[in-house]
């Protein structure tokens, strides 16, 4: 698994048992190690498909895990450590994309859909509630279809 080239191996890695974090990488300080794991889970392994560096056994992911731990050991904050990696690989490494105008549809879209849909439903119920009789009688053809369905 050590000899790899980005494009080709990505597919393989997705299907390979993930070795992920190894004991020799882990920090002695449990609080610091917990922070390192948290950060690692937020960072994408750039040569993998949809894996965080915490889950990936790609060599580059391991390098980044070690880097994160170094930064934390040096006293950097979580945010500063993330920024350090983003400065090198770009927003692409963030599994949680930044909230900015370009990603507003991503973040707000589903909520807008639910709220907009709800508003439309309310409007429709009010308008039609006034206009239409409560019960629309079945047409002859519909009645025939239903009767056939019920085996009549």
């Amino acid at each position: 698994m050590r000899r790899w080239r980005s494009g080709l191996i990505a597919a393989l890695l997705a299907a390979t048992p993930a070795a992920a974090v190894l004991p020799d990488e882990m920090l002695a300080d449990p609080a610091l190690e917990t922070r390192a794991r948290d950060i690692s889970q937020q960072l994408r392994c750039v040569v993998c498909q949809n894996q965080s560096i915490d889950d990936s056994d790609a060599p580059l992911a391991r390098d980044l895990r070690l880097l994160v731990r170094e930064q934390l050991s040096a006293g950097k904050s979580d945010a500063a450590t993330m920024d350090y990696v983003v400065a090198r690989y770009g927003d692409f490494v963030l599994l949680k994309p930044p909230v900015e105008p370009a990603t507003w549809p991503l973040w707000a879209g589903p909520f807008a859909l639910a709220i907009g849909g709800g508003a439309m439903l309310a409007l429709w119920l009010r308008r039609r509630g006034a206009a239409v009789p409560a019960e629309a009688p079945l047409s002859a053809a519909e009645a025939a279809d239903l009767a056939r369905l019920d085996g009549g």
Partner: protein
Amino acid sequence: MKRLLFLLPVLAFVGLIAIFGVGLTKDPKELPSMLIDKPMPQFALPGIEAGGGFATAALRGQPALVNVFASWCAACPQEHPVLTRIAGEGYPVFGIAWKDQPADARDWLARLGNPYKAIASDLSGRVAIDLGVTGAPETFVTDKAGRVRYKIVGPISPEAWEGEIKPLMDRLRAEA
């Protein structure tokens, strides 16, 4: 009004397809470099043999290519003749041996020839991370001031050299 509502799904679909059409023509694997138009990150690395290696300062003064390679890299032998040609045409090529045992790198170059003006050994891979490298080979184009101007992911093809990179190098040479 009501008509418009029923038209909405198909309109949304057409819009979606249009966006997909554009998005799908891009290579999702290609990660744009964060370094474009920024100075090359500072480093000073030893060589693959005693007395070799170079530091960032060595890149100043002339446009240069900085090529990240490794003896274990599958695509590098394919690129190697192109690099040899580039060096032969008088453009300086610097090499960074990425996570490669110096002995392995030496053997590899002894077999294929050495096109590099200088080679730095990045055994830990730390400098590669500073450069935002995701795989080998990757090549950076730097200008006279040592700023990164362009990045090529994957092996450089002869066509890419002729059509894109060489003209760029010549432009950079002409820059003040």
